[in-house]
């Protein structure tokens, strides 16, 4: 008869070291022997982590599951396999019941449930579930982002705070952390393995499990593991400071545990460490920061400890504490930021100079300092992200740029800023930022489809081809690579190939609304209107806030000259993105086509005022003025355009038509000839028609 516990421990050990085949083998043996729900859950986890989702699903689906973790895993598998009904059944439908049943996993369960709701079209329930998840665990950024993307109002100031009454990030996690750190010490520090280790290691990521293991692990039988733990910690010590997230730094170091080298061999340090760890609830492990320069014990196992631990302070030693002041989470204020920045500078200087770790007596901080620091960072980022999601791009850029420099330099923030520029149609600026990101992080593909669209707008064929080639080479199964390739061929006007690649991207990831929108646009250009409309409608059903798709439908109708329908859809797009000059311009055009000249002119006025860099607003205003029979007024706009864009042939063409209307035949001819000079092929030959009055298509505009 196999005792489950040690085997489970072994399997978790394999999992923690990413050795999935080994883990699966052992877990299968355990499951075959015992067949219990716990064993099933363990085996399911092994399958899931190694990507064998179908098997995990099959394993768990026909059982009545009591363990909440097992139910959660089953729900996750079902959701991944798109059988949303099963997922929903596994999770349940009452949010409060879920919150109580799943305990610490509740936020994740709720997030998963929200995903299921969205996929089945119940957006309101999804929003509720996300909100609940956030209230339980303020670090669920994804829920916040989804809420913003859905257009729900969320207040980052409210959301990102530790609401201790409901915060279930518990002591058990902490304790597991401690025990896991022992594990780390074994596994990662290359310290000589003690055979007694196995009994003390517990799976860290199952938060609620085996609390009993905790107690045993805290009091190890032998000195050696403890020493190792110390050494591990002190090995970690080299991280010179805890992540301040741009806030007050290091001075405080309330925490912890500062196992210093001097302490390392003292038994008494252990309870202090444990206490300090216990006291710090919900602190986040700091990101992998500087490597341990002074780690004399081998490479600091930063990565694995980060995986387990929620408590970063435990690994950071505040050696440069000038004063034992605490890190407080003060409300956001600019002056504080400045102070923090200077404080951080001072700190980093002192770190360099001061090589020895000071012995700081561990104290139990009253607050969870690093967690709170992270939360205030998240508040800032949340504000900025909210601006972006609601397409208030200027404010978004401003807010993002106010982030602390380290965060600002991170690729995600840069991508968001570039996206904001893209939404404002500032393609140059966006492309510049994206190319920087590509240089520094060449294997990062998130956001690259937006980069390719910017290059498409700017008609930079060489860069776009290079980008497409690099991304496809990098990973042929990445839908983003195929979107980029599609944009590349679309720019080259090879419609069939572009369509092929866009279809491929959609096949790889049918849930990406933008991919459908791009496919739709390509169909529209290739004049396959039915397929275009179908793609656009699909995009909108996935994400009703995707204004690119709404605009696409509008352009299809415009080409078919169904101006009323086109106007309706442009308005829809505008309601999502009210500050867009391009959209407003198109609205003006639609209105003028419907004959509502006054309305059109006022819309175009607004467009011109809104988007100063977009010359088309003025251009179309001039053309509408001409149509409305006010050629003289059109002249002012056109002269302005001539100044800023002297090589645009259509400006001269329009000037020619205006002069024709005004009766200045010679000026008209002069402008027409300039237009043809600049662009011999013209755009479909209508410039030639402009030359020859007998072929003018709009008789009312013919000069007599």
């Amino acid at each position, binding site marked *: 008869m196999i005792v489950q516990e040690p085997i489970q421990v072994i399997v978790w050990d394999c999992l923690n070291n990413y050795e999935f085949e080994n883990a699966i083998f052992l877990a299968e043996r355990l499951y075959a022997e015992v067949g219990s729900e716990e064993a099933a859950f363990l085996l399911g986890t092994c399958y899931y982590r190694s990507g064998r989702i179908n098997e995990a699903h099959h394993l768990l689906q026909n059982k009545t599951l009591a363990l909440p973790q097992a139910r959660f895993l089953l729900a996750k598998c079902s959701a991944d396999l798109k059988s949303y009904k099963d997922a929903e059944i596994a999770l349940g439908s009452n949010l409060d019941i879920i919150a109580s049943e799943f305990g610490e996993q509740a936020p994740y369960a709720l997030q998963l449930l929200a995903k299921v709701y969205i996929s089945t079209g119940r957006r309101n329930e999804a929003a509720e579930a996300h909100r609940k998840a956030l209230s339980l665990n303020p670090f669920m950024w994804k829920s916040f982002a989804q809420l913003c993307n859905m257009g729900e109002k969320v207040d980052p100031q409210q959301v990102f705070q530790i609401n201790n009454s409901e915060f279930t990030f518990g002591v058990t996690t902490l304790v597991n952390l401690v025990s896991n750190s022992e594990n780390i010490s074994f596994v990662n520090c290359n310290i000589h393995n003690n055979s007694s280790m196995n009994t003390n290691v517990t799976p860290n990521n199952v938060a609620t499990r085996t609390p009993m293991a905790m107690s045993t692990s805290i009091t190890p039988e032998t000195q050696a593991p403890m020493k190792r733990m110390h050494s591990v910690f002190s090995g970690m010590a080299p991280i010179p400071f805890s992540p301040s997230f741009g806030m007050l730094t290091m001075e405080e170091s309330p925490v912890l545990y500062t196992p210093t080298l001097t302490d390392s061999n003292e038994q008494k340090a252990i309870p202090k460490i444990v206490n300090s760890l216990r006291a710090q609830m919900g602190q986040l492990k700091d990101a992998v920061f500087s490597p341990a320069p002074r780690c004399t014990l081998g490479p600091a196992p930063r990565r694995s400890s980060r995986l387990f631990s929620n408590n970063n302070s435990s690994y950071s030693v505040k050696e440069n504490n000038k004063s034992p002041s605490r890190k407080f989470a003060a409300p956001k204020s600019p002056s504080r930021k400045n102070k923090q920045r200077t404080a951080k500078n001072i700190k980093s200087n002192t770190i360099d100079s001061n090589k020895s770790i000071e012995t700081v007596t561990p104290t139990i901080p009253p607050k969870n300092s690093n967690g709170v620091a992270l939360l205030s960072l998240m508040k800032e980022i949340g504000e900025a992200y909210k601006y972006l999601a609601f397409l208030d791009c200027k404010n978004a850029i401003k807010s993002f740029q106010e982030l602390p420099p380290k965060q600002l330099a991170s690729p995600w923030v840069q991508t968001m800023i570039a996206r904001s520029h893209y939404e404002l*149609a500032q*393609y140059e600026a966006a492309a510049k930022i994206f190319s920087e990101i590509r240089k520094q992080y060449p294997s990062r593909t998130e956001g690259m489809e937006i980069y390719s*669209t910017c290059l*498409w*707008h*700017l*008609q930079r064929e060489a860069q776009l081809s290079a980008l497409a080639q690099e991304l496809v080479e990098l990973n042929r199964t990445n839908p983003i690579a195929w979107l980029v390739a599609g*944009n590349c061929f679309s720019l*080259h*006007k*090879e*419609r*069939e190939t572009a369509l092929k690649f866009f279809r491929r991207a959609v096949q790889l990831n049918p849930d990406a609304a933008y991919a459908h*929108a*791009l496919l739709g*646009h390509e169909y529209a250009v*290739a*004049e396959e209107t039915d397929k275009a409309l179908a793609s656009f409608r699909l995009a909108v059903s996935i994400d009703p806030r995707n*204004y*690119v798709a709404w*605009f696409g439908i509008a*352009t299809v109708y*415009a*080409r078919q*000259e169904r101006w009323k329908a086109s106007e309706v859809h442009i308005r829809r797009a505008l309601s999502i993105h009210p500050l*867009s*000059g*391009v*959209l407003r*311009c198109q609205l003006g*055009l639609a209105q*003028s*086509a419907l004959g509502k000249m006054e309305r059109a002119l006022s819309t175009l006025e607004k467009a011109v005022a809104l988007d100063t860099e*977009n*010359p*088309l607003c003025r*251009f*179309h205003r001039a*053309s509408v003025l001409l*149509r409305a029979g006010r050629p003289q007024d059109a002249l002012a706009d056109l002269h302005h355009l001539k100044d800023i*864009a002297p*090589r*645009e*042939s*259509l400006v001269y063409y329009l000037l020619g038509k205006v002069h024709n209307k005004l009766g200045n035949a010679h000026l008209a001819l002069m402008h027409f000839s300039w237009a043809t000079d*600049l*662009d011999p*092929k013209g*755009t*479909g030959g*209508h410039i030639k028609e402009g030359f020859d009055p007998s072929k003018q*298509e*709009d008789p009312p505009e013919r000069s007599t």
Partner: protein
Amino acid sequence: MAGLEKDPLVYERSGTVREVGNHAIWSLSSCKPGFGIDQLRDDCMETYWQSDGQLPHLVNIQFQKKTMVSHIYIYTDYKLDESYTPSRISIRAGTHFNDLQEIEVIELIEPSGWEMIPIKDIHDRPIRTYMIQIAVLSNHQNGRDTHMRQIKVHSPCEPTSFDINKFRNFSTVQFQQYATIR
């Protein structure tokens, strides 16, 4: 003549025409197994269609809706195909098999590369048709069967007559980048 001006891809890339062969149903009067429509439409000059019957050999292109056709391009190579190279080709158009009218006949003399056949009606405009038939009437050196390596059909992308819609293609990037949102 330089093959460049006759290369259909150049025109496709300019955005003024589209290749519409994919919107049509193709059929042949005869073919040798492995040398049929796929080889005729695969964008590869190494593969070809080889007929296997009596002259005239026919390629039938049927569209689902009346399509405007401006040019037909045929790729043949005398150096490779010698007596299989067509020498007289007749282009017919109409609504169905029993309703075809010859609109164009061309003579080829030792062609090597793309041959462009403009399709115009009596008013010199591209025709609108449901069906096109390309008939090979005779081959070089009086060969019986024929090889054709590639065929492309171009349809013009016409700007509509409405004034505003004309302004869809600007000549500078500065303007064009704001013309649409993707």
